[in-house]
């Protein structure tokens, strides 16, 4: 199978879905770039290059550089979804959601429920997330717990190029609103990605690695961190299963519970803030529904309860590392 970057995988899904369905449009700041300027058109193709080439292929009516007014264009994406289009709207960094959360939380997420089941809002909101590039406190957050908290949203956090493509295609074809978050540290990573279109269903965890001593649950960029830890631990004779839920909402509770019952020891690795975060959410699921099979405390490896710092030494200490996972697993394996 051809090797592609995560960025290419996203780009391919967008191309294929726009081709497949005329109602799919793409909007956001600089999704093309160069609009109204003297030089190149499609100059950026998105701040991370994921939407490159769409302008040329589908034209300016369907690929729209927006003003820096997230409330207006995210809200417009919602309104357009209610009335026949299937917009893919980009918030460059998920941190910016603070200026437009109402349209996501109170409008898009709730239309269907409030309107008694008569509305459908097939919109995808893409955004980059995560620390690691010196973005500082306002450009490095992993805010998926906020979206996961909100009923009516589906939330997707892919960990590999293969998943990114298939999950994004699913998100675009899905009739419910989807928040699709891409780790900015993964854009340049590569993996096998089929050329043709395919979808990956939501709510189905991926067992990235089998193992019988400790269950590692991780999502997005943390899947790689968990895998790396698992490799180290293997050399110590500790065998880890790495489970990637892929979609925080819907969460594949069954697989998480089954694997817990099988293995009995769990470490959850997550990049979001710890309080009311995804690691806590999954831990509480297990503590309620798989308690009898637990042989040790459920450990969480997360950042501290602090904003994301700028300096590289601090930022590296903020994000969970394989070392910290190894340590947690060792503690749990003994316990």
């Amino acid at each position: 199978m051809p090797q592609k970057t995560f960025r290419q995988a996203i780009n391919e899904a967008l191309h294929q879905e726009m081709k497949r369905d005329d109602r799919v449009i793409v909007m956001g700041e600089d999704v093309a770039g160069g609009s109204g300027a003297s030089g190149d058109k499609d100059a950026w193709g998105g701040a991370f290059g994921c939407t490159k080439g769409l302008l040329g292929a589908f034209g300016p009516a369907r690929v729209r550089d927006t003003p820096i007014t997230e409330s207006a264009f995210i809200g417009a994406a919602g309104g357009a979804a209610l009335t026949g289009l299937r917009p893919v709207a980009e918030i460059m960094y998920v941190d910016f959601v603070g200026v437009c959360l109402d349209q996501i939380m109170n409008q898009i997420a709730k239309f269907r429920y409030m309107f008694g089941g008569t509305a459908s809002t097939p919109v995808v909101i893409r955004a980059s997330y995560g620390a690691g590039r010196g973005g500082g406190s306002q450009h490095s957050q992993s805010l998926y717990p906020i979206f996961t908290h909100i009923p009516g949203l589906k939330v997707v956090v892919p960990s590999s190029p293969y998943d990114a493509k298939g999950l994004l295609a699913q998100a675009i074809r899905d009739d419910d609103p989807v928040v699709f978050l891409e780790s900015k540290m993964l854009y340049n990573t590569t993996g096998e990605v089929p050329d043709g279109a395919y979808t990956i269903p939501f709510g189905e965890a991926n067992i990235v690695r089998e193992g019988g001593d400790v269950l590692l649950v991780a999502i997005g960029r943390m899947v790689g961190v968990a895998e790396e830890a698992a490799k180290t631990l293997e050399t110590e004779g500790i065998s880890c299963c790495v489970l990637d839920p892929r979609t925080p909402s819907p969460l594949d509770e069954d697989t998480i519970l089954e694997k817990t019952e099988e293995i009995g020891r769990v470490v959850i690795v997550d990049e979001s803030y710890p309080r009311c975060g995804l690691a806590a959410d999954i831990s509480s699921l297990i503590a309620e529904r798989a308690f009898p099979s637990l042989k040790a405390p459920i450990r969480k490896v997360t950042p501290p309860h602090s904003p994301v710092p700028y300096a590289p030494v601090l930022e590296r200490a903020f994000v969970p590392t394989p070392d910290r996972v190894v340590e947690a697993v060792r503690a749990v394996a003994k316990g």
Partner: protein
Amino acid sequence: MSELQLSQAQLLEAYRLMKTIRVFEERAMTEKMGGNVPGGTHLYAGEEASAVGVCMHLGPADQISSTHRGHGHSIAKGCDVDGMMAEIMGKGTGICGGKGGSQHIADLSKGMLGANGIVGAGSPIVCGAALSAQILGKQDVAVAFIGDGAFNQGTTAESLNLASIWKLPAIFVVEDNGFGEATSSAFVQAGEIVERAASFKIPAMKVDGVDFFAVYQAAGEAVSRARAGGGPSVIHTVVPRYFGHYAGDPDNYRTAEEKAAMRKDRDCLKRFRARVDETSLLDAAALDQIDADVEAAIASAADKGRAAPPPALESLTTDVYIRYV
């Protein structure tokens, strides 16, 4: 002479809609006071000509979005009053199955994209509906009804900008009842609505919102422009708010004299009757008949609403998603 643009049937329809809104709101007040409306509700009485003057230009493929004060827009856009009354009573027969309530009445089959509990949230949604029409190559328009208070909200400015640069077939009807809750708009709004709109290069008109014909005329221009690809418009309608901010508001921030004068001098129904009488376009008997019909229809809606069963308990968790594994 905008009244001459309308057929007799249209004139009767306009009156019927305005009257329906008035009576619906008076009944909603009564039902609220009688304990039959579980949640809060904001009444549109007094502002009827604004909704109807605009919506008389719209068909079901045109879209509107409304506010917390949404009953009038809903009725003007063709929503079923039985379903609306049952909705505000929280019944299973409600237009949203009792899950929405007054602030979330919607009927997508009628092009009514929802009342909205968030001040200022409708305008971006309307930009999206207008974008759909534009991209899908339809002649449809989308109308955002917003209050004078909502006009200051950042979402409004962003939407005006977006609608202007994208030449969207969007119309923003700013219903200026002089108040955002208990605070006067003079206290919180800098400058004039039409000037602010004009600064976004959007044509803007200010009209007397108790004059159905004035609203109808302005909306006609705006709708034609939008359908012809001429982009957005703003219509500033100056309207009275007969009741307090919400049903039950003591409304003590307005003097009794002010409120009495408003009801006496600023009544779109009386104004309409005087105008069609003066111009001999309709006779009073036909309007009286509408009055009677409307009273009966709303009384019946209320009776049915009260008698209707509550939603089934299972509906608590349905409709959150179309499909959630």
